[in-house]
């Protein structure tokens, strides 16, 4: 009996050992491709993710922080985000190597991966729709989705064309198993414009039932969407040139055509403290973050107050005379409303006194509804109506219609917000050009990412770092475009290359 008992106990335990889970476990945390592409609603979620990675690739900490410093928009001498190294004077090249620190590599990787990943998500959506996945069987919801996918491809290619010398153009026909050729930036921009135009025509076809909810829930109706699409098309067409020569060759007729139909509102998704943030607005604006963050570059202070030097004197390191009066004065009222004066400077001297200035941008605090802190709440302006107006004015100017350009300027923020005197109708084209550049620098500050980097490279010749002017070109040797990340070149079996530095004064010729 006892033996029977012990045997029973033992074999019961043995049987218990069979109560096991199988090997076919699943991931309950992250969906797979098969799971996210099965229904129309799924496609909207995937597209939402695509918009987010585009936003993060273009409005995150990289490359905006580094390029804003290297375009003398802001001064920031901390090592974070590659800002210190890209703000060296005289300028050094962007060192495109996989052995560099992650933070520095992110300058090229973040926009590269963000924009390409966004295109990939858009392609997934378009491909699934071609295979029959649908929200309303070809109705206006499907049209909206398609338009939104094309729009995402457009803004992704657009920024790739603005930032990089070449990029990968992947559409539904591309075979990813074959080696991919790089496409030069001019063709990338062309592709971006075609996408924007495709998006516009699809949205128009969808009509009043069109809806776009992909910018963190910001609802765009058809007119708002097409206005935004035209505006982005105008931005890409106007800001792609790397030099004055290319700028002269830009298609200003098409810029005008698109800007004329561009947005009449300030496009600004809302920050949520999580995924949707704008690091440039967080780090550049005055958010009460103590003395740590960026200052407005001295060149912009000098733009508002010509009595100020455009380069902050090297008092300690260079024995230069200190500023007579650190507090600037200007006819432009925005110096008082949008900027905050600090009597002291906040960066270590040995990191370069050229980073010094006595001003921070605090329009987010003084202009209700304009912006939040870029991080937790409030709008994150990414495309102002003023930006579109200025593109229109510039196109008119380039096309010789100076008077019309002046009219737009006088009706705009120069007078409304800056309280500057109206430009005379018979102003010289050069004066109008300077007024446009000034508005772009001061009014658009901390809105469109890297905008002054794009504007400085195309509007004026490069300037020696000791002789910079307020609205002049990039400093000699500043990278005027970014190279394909070394990691991607590695995959494509190509040698890494750099832009900028003493061997590439224009910042556009590859240095190996």
């Amino acid at each position, binding site marked *: 009996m006892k033996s029977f008992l*012990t045997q029973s106990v033992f074999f019961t335990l043995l049987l218990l*050992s069979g109560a096991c889970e199988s*090997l076919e476990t699943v991931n309950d945390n992250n969906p797979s491709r098969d799971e996210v592409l099965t229904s129309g609603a799924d496609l909207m979620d995937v597209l939402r993710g695509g918009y987010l990675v585009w936003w993060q690739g273009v409005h995150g900490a990289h490359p905006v922080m580094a390029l804003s410093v290297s375009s003398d928009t802001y001064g920031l001498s901390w090592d974070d985000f590659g800002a*210190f190294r890209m703000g060296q004077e005289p300028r050094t090249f962007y060192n495109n190597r996989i052995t560099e620190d992650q933070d520095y590599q992110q300058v090229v990787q973040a926009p590269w991966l963000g924009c390409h990943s966004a295109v990939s998500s858009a392609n997934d959506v378009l491909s699934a729709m071609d295979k029959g996945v649908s929200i309303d069987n070809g109705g206006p919801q499907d049209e909206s989705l398609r338009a939104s996918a094309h729009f995402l491809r457009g803004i992704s290619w657009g920024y790739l064309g603005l930032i990089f010398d070449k990029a990968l153009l992947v559409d539904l026909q591309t075979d990813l198993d074959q080696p991919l050729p790089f496409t030069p930036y001019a063709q990338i921009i062309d592709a971006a414009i075609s996408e924007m135009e495709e998006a516009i025509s699809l949205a128009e076809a969808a009509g009043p039932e069109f809806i776009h909810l992909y910018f963190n829930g910001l609802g765009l109706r058809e007119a708002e969407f097409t206005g935004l699409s035209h505006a982005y098309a105008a931005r890409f067409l106007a800001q792609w040139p790397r030099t004055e020569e290319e700028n002269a060759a830009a298609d200003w007729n098409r810029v005008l055509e698109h800007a004329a139909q561009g947005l009449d509102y300030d496009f600004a998704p809302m920050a949520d403290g999580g995924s949707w943030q704008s690091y440039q607005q967080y780090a550049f604006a005055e958010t009460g973050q103590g003395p740590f963050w960026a200052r407005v570059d001295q060149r912009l202070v000098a733009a508002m107050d010509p009595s100020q030097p455009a380069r902050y004197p090297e008092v300690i*390191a260079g024995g230069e005379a200190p500023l007579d009066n650190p507090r600037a004065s200007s006819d432009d009222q925005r110096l008082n409303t949008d900027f905050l004066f600090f009597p002291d400077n906040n960066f270590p001297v040995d990191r370069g006194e050229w980073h010094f200035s006595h001003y921070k941008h605090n329009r987010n605090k003084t202009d209700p509804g304009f912006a939040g802190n870029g991080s937790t709440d409030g709008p994150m302006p990414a495309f102002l109506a003023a930006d579109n107006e200025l593109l229109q004015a510039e196109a008119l100017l380039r096309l010789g219609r100076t008077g019309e350009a002046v009219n737009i300027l006088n009706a705009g923020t120069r007078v409304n917000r800056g309280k500057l005197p109206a430009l005379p109708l018979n102003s010289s084209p050069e004066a109008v050009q300077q007024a446009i550049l000034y508005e772009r620098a001061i009014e658009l500050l901390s809105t469109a990412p890297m905008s002054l980097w794009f504007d400085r490279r195309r509007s004026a010749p490069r300037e020696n770092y000791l002789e910079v002017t307020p609205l002049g070109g990039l400093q000699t040797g500043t990278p005027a475009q970014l190279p394909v990340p070394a990691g991607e070149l*590695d995959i494509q079996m190509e040698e890494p290359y750099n832009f900028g530095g003493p061997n590439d004064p224009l910042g556009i010729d590859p240095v190996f």
Partner: protein
Amino acid sequence: MRIYLPFALSLLLGLSAFPLLAQQLTVTGKVTSSEGAPLPGVHIQVKGAGTGTVTNERGKYAISVPGTGTFFFRSEPPPTLVFSYTGFKTMEVAVDGQTELDVELPEEAAQLEEIIVTGTAAGRSPKIMSYAVGKIDEKELQEVPGATLGIGMQGKTPGLRVNRISGQPGQGVYFQVRSANAIANGQQPMLIVDGVFLGSQTLADLNPEDIEKIEILKGSAGTSLYGSQAANGVVQIFTKRGRNLEAGETKVSYRGEVGYSEPANRYPVNEFTNREILDPSGPQPILGDPNPDMVFDTPLPNLQDYQENILFQNGLYQSHSLSVQGKTERTNFLGSVQRLRDEGLFQSSEGYTRHSFRLNLDHQISNKLELQASSMYANSRQDLLALSSNGPNSFLATTLFLTPMFDLEAPNEEDGSSYDWDIDNTGFGITNPLYDRYNSRQSVDRNRLLGSLTTNYYAKDWLTLSYTAALDRSVNEFEHFLEKGYLSTSLPGQFGTLATAGVQNSNGGGIQRTTRITNSFISRANATIRRSFQGFNTAIRASYLYEELRAQFNGSIGENLAVRRIRSLDNAQSNIFISSENQLITAHSGFLIADADYKQKYIFSGLFRREGSSLFGPEQRWANYYRLSGAYRLTEDINIRGVRELKLRASIGTSGIRPTFEQRFEAFELIDGNITKKTLGNSRLRPAYSTETEVGLNASFGAFDLEFNFANILTEDQVLLAPLTAAAGFAGQWRNAGAVAAKVYEAGLKINFARLFKIKNGDINWNLMTTFDRVEQRVESLDIPAYVTGPGLQQSSLFLVEEGRALGTMVGEVFATSLDQLPEREGVNPSDFTLNQAGYVVRKDELGTPAERPFKLTDDNGNPLVQPIGDINPDFRMGFAHTIGFKGIQLYTLFDWKKGGQIYNLSKQWLYRDHRHADVSRYEEVPAGFFGNEGLYNGLVANNHFVEDAGFFMLREAALSYTFGNGAFGKWIDQFRLSLIGRNLFTLTDYSGFHPDVTSPLREENRLTNRFNGGIGSDPRTPNGDPNLFIVDAFNYPVARTLTFSIQATF
């Protein structure tokens, strides 16, 4: 007729195999040592008959012998049983009709050796092991029982390296057994405690005083039994269970230890300034502009010693443990309880407190059935004063960063509250560390439950069936609380902008809570057969094993607190985020293992294992592992003068390293409801596959016992993140894409000096155990582009993974230290350069001027050269455990020697940023700029200046004890022992930081899926960091020197 011939032959053969079948007598009994300890695995043979058996785990046996009398008309002498067991004298006992026969085997003069269980079929004496097994026994651990288990294992067995992140009380350690075999997935071996597979890889919860012995299987040649988790070795820990007591005996022990820990040294900080002193008076002196020569030669006003006054303390260390062991005829048990408190080095820290309870119970239900139960519960609380994530915002870092001239206890101007947060007026914006200390708290609470139940059923005298179920449940609760009104320029941990009250619309403050629960369950059934015949002894085990690991993570964070003090998530008003993750990992495996020997002279072991895991891709679901191993005890055949024992061994075996859950599955990342592409899934992912060939020898001669092993290891199919073209949309895909090769030389030498010097006095106990290992490890092949990686701390990705390179190679920029390094190119004329006071190449015309900078090596285009600048791999490591005793007094010391191997001193580099390191004022002629951003600090980019020799020679453990003999304190106290114990008493090293025996942290407390830039383990190619490979000092909690006094009494 012909058809009956085979039958007849079989019958004859059967009769010859069982010639005494007709008159069988079954003899049962028990074999013990002279101290009464049961001896498992004793070989018992019927003399002259060729049949036999072995004793079971409880020393019991049953054997059939011929009855006395006549057989086939011949008169037979009484049968004789031969009992043989390594380390004991062989005994012959005649069976004269008894059916019960208990035998006490006298020990040979040599030490009593235990059997090795881990990785064998049925337990084996070390003498007949055919592959290397490390063993640390109770005595070696109990001389200086550490606060946490692991660290006390360094230096005690060859081939086991123990790395610790820091000296933080309660911090776990990271083992490396032999070489580093994984490029991306860490080196932690499989950890087993009393048969429980640990799911949470920390041993910090265990009470070191419960440990009876530790067995370490070192490489695939030994670990194949454990399959795809075992390529990094297997460490199995056994706890005490009262088994070695006499029946009827109960032993109660108390051990109390009280003392303190103190920092071993002070960090060298700069006490000078290069600035004009405008106002020298405290609490906030004012400095003006730098002097024109930029040299730090003016003593700071109001100089403070922050390390002495606000940072360090002599922290109390105390532990109390009580254990009861007992044994009856059928039952033995251990019950123990421990309370340990280690306040640590930092002032106002709660340190680490642990309570642990253990109950082990074995019971024999019947002659055939027994139960073994083990259980442990531990609860601990750790005050994470210095973050486990360290970095430049920790309490230690800000204390060192701050210019030491402020009275840190001055109140805030803003509201009169304690500790002026922005007292730093130098422009560096360092938050007052005291303010941070009292307004920011982090803690970890751990609850750990281990339990296992084993049933052994002795179905036949040659067959044992057993079943084990075991569970490890670990609950880890992390809390980070920032007080409402928190003011800072930098945001701690994962908090966002509203955690500081300086931001518009925020009260500041925040709370984060995360809970990680891991449940590791196994269910295993074994059938073990033991037979002995014709001089052959065999043990065969067939097993089936099911493993199930469930991990759960929940995390919440919120900011902008409504009220002060309240540590509730409901206190947060803004920026509230939640996150969770679940993982289920399963594995089924079956294996067959056979151990055999012929007269304990020729030894063989072989096994085969087939394993399927949910962590393998669906197309690679099953993996096979094997081992073949043999040994020859030469001295059994050949008499070599002076050599008692010489055993030659050779083994080959395979085992694996599993991919992680994230590597196996993740495709789209889901955070805050947003779906974004991350890594591409891989249905063909398989475990890394390690093959090890090991040869070795064991020799005993004179007073020496020597073990030597050489292992050649190749670990292929490394699981690595292959970068994908951005066009794919995914950043990468985990693939099997590389191999690591290693050569390991290890040796252990035990010297009995009393024997060596022929000291006859039995009261003298004098011996030395020396361990040695040398490891050469390199990336054998790499199917993805070479890359640099690191622990994920800011600017710390400096470890190069490249084909042909040593694993653990550091790369960085190079500042020339010799004129020979100057490049031959236009514009660089060696005669323009010279060495400065600090030993770096500088331009002669800049020497002594504010413009003096070190010369950085560049290529022809001006690109800084990035070259190998260091290597973590030491030339060798050695341990010397020395014991000398006379009668009751004994001195024990453990010296630990690490020769070579380098560490990257990121703390020092950070301290160069603001010129706060003492180096900056060390040279009266070298200006500040030489150390600054364009100088050695180099924008925090890795360079050769911060690579330092991490070699050391340290007295890791020392104990001076006196044991009072029986009866010294009356009849109730059997033994009474007093000890003075020191840990880390002194260290000889060239390292300039606190201590070289530290490494980079492992990512533990963060979200499992979302890695933030600059956070621990944010380097996606090495997802959790790797403390064994990334030897980086980043403001690690200093290693403490501890002095304690202990009392141990046994009743």
